[in-house]
């Protein structure tokens, strides 16, 4: 799709600025979906559970970030150095709180059902999703709530070859990259990361090798929640509007991204998130916003038909 529109732009406008802006918007939106998708893919990879509550953990992350702005006194008049410090602190608060929430859900809701039929934790996940949605309604009401535009989300930061980079784009991309790289390194090299991979491949063998499987699974939920909390803050600053229902839509898109990229594969989740972000923006700008959901899911179906394991899907306990 981008190639077709790039050719169109070259013939019609003689430049690639328009498609460049579409892709840039797609990457900055998709980066947020990618962070949420990581939680889905990690959890599915290790316990074969579609954690339907994950989108709502992301929503709660946004709400906590919004509350933290108030606690820390961050508003449009805050000086830039204090603002940066405050936002870093907010990131920490939101990530830790969301991680703890996801960990708590695992401990209370999923761990007791570890040996139960698969449908039991699945229904529990749906239950937690509804519970958290209602927590959101009780917390900030049923309407969209405007968040102070602390970073000037749509203000131009700089321009590269006609492509406008806004403060929101910079925040989204520059926060997501280190988080994803850090997580990838953690999974690849850290002792707990290796334990996660081992548990994902064969929990019984991992247990025989001395790995504390329950602790490893808890850590997976905690890390997924941390990513969702970080995404919640970025979403709040980027969109400047939050509401209790944002997790449902984000969860749907992020889960789609995880499946498209290859469920259980971290890089796949990121790639899936970025692809969906780009498809959404191109469709909104070129075809019409009413068609966007159709196009996104049509693309997912196409990917599944060609590569049933997803774009970067590989042999895993679940997939192979």
């Amino acid at each position, binding site marked *: 799709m981008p190639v077709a529109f790039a050719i169109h732009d070259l013939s019609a406008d003689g430049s690639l600025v328009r498609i460049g802006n579409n892709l840039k918007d797609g990457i900055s939106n998709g980066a947020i979906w990618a962070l949420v998708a990581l939680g889905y893919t990690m959890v599915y990879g290790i316990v074969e559970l*579609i954690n339907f509550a994950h989108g709502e953990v992301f929503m709660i992350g946004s709400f906590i970030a919004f509350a933290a702005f108030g606690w820390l006194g961050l508003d449009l008049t805050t000086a830039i150095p204090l603002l940066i410090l405050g936002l870093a602190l907010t990131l920490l608060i939101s990530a830790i709180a969301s991680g703890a929430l996801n960990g708590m859900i695992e401990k209370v809701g999923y761990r007791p059902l570890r040996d139960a039929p698969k449908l039991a934790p699945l229904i529990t996940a749906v239950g937690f999703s509804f519970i958290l949605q209602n927590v959101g309604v009780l917390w900030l*009401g049923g309407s969209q709530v405007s968040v102070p*535009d602390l970073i000037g989300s749509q203000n131009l930061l700089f321009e590269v070859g006609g492509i406008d980079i806004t403060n929101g784009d910079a925040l989204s991309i520059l926060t997501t990259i280190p988080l994803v790289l850090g997580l990838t390194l953690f999974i690849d090299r850290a002792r707990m990361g290796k334990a996660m991979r081992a548990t994902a491949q064969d929990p019984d063998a991992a247990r025989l090798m001395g790995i504390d499987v329950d602790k490893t699974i808890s850590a997976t939920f905690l890390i997924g929640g941390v990513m969702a909390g970080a995404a919640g803050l970025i979403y709040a600053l980027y969109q400047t509007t939050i509401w209790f229902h944002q997790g449902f839509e984000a969860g749907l898109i992020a889960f789609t991204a995880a499946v498209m990229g290859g469920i259980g594969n971290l890089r796949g989740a990121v790639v899936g998130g970025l692809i969906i972000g780009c498809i*959404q923006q191109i469709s909104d700008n070129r075809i019409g916003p009413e068609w966007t959901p159709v196009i996104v899911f049509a693309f997912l179906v196409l990917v599944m038909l060609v590569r049933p394991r997803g774009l970067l899907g590989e042999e895993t306990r679940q997939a192979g």
Partner: protein
Amino acid sequence: MSQRRSGLLAAGVAVVALSFGLAACGGSDDDGGGSGSGTGANEVSIYSSFPLQGASRPTGISLQNGVQLALEQAGNKAGGVDINFVPLDDSTAQAGEWTPEAESANAKKAVQDDSAVAYIGTYNSGAAAISIPILNEAGLAMLSPGNTAVGLTSDAPGADTGIGEPDIYYPTGERNYARIVPKDTVQGAALAGLMDEDGCTKVGVLNDNEVYGKGLAANVIDAGSKFDYEFADGGAIDTQAANFRSTAKDFASQGVDCFVFGGITASNAVQLYKDMGAAMPDAKLYGPDGVGDSDFAGGLPADVASRTKVTVPTLSQEAYGKEGAKFFKDYAAKFGEDENKIGPFAIYGYEAGKLILDVLDRAEDPTNRADVVKAMFDTKDRNSILGKYSIDENGDTTLTDYGVFDIKNGDLTFDEKISAKPST
């Protein structure tokens, strides 16, 4: 294993579908069937159905309060019978707005109550499209203080005649629905005229693909076709989208200098206007009564709010004279609100209550549904708080005044009156 995963995914989908399905099954807990004949009792029930949760809550609450105030001021009596007021909610917390399931359940509850003679509602035209046929089959009078979609009553521009509007809503062939708010041929003409006055040259239009929003967008385009400006019709939005930046940039690249949305606040309108405002820093922004509430006005950043005008079928408080002044004072006292910040639809709720009282007074038998419907359609030259009006054979009001509101300090502030002349 692929099968195993597919099975798990399918099971997940089934669980979600089942959960939503069960949620949709909530229905009436009343038994019994309605009757078109008079009950002979000395008490009748008046139902109301408005969204009391989500983004439309401020409007829904002010409409319900208005009805309640009117009925209480009359001692809950009219036409020699006592009135039992039954306020219902057609929204859910999960949806954050009205839902077809809730509205359908409300209408069925009213129909199954033998003492019910009138149903005041809805605010959302899409909700009315659900309840009108249900009430129509039971011969129950429905009076809306908020619906503006054209197709609910007529086949004038803006109606979707392709699906059979308006006859599709009246399975018995008899009319039972009336409204006291001017329909969107009037509002469309008001918005189109306003944009011409403001010097727009190219107007971007989007809608939320609902009965009200889609129809209104069509009305604006229809009424605006007689002016010199052009339209860029972007069609419908995905109301669940995280943002609308690319759509806004598309409008900006087309040279759009004015924007209007056919939709309601709950359709992600705050995010939409933020994104339009950011992508087009000099554009003028317009909204219909669907966004005429405090959630929308208070949600916009100052630079966007200062460029936004909203049309609402309400005028300044002063325009309603002494009766209006008394209403605003009484309303503020009863519901503990600031007299100057009462929602624009409260007065429509009040007049809906007053009209139903009048209808019961005039009905031959106020306990008979058919007599109540007849009396509602017999409303001619009624001197009301909104001004003198009649209900025509389609159920439409003859009122045509719209107010233009600015947004100042997060509040809707009356600016001017427009007496629009619709094309049909």
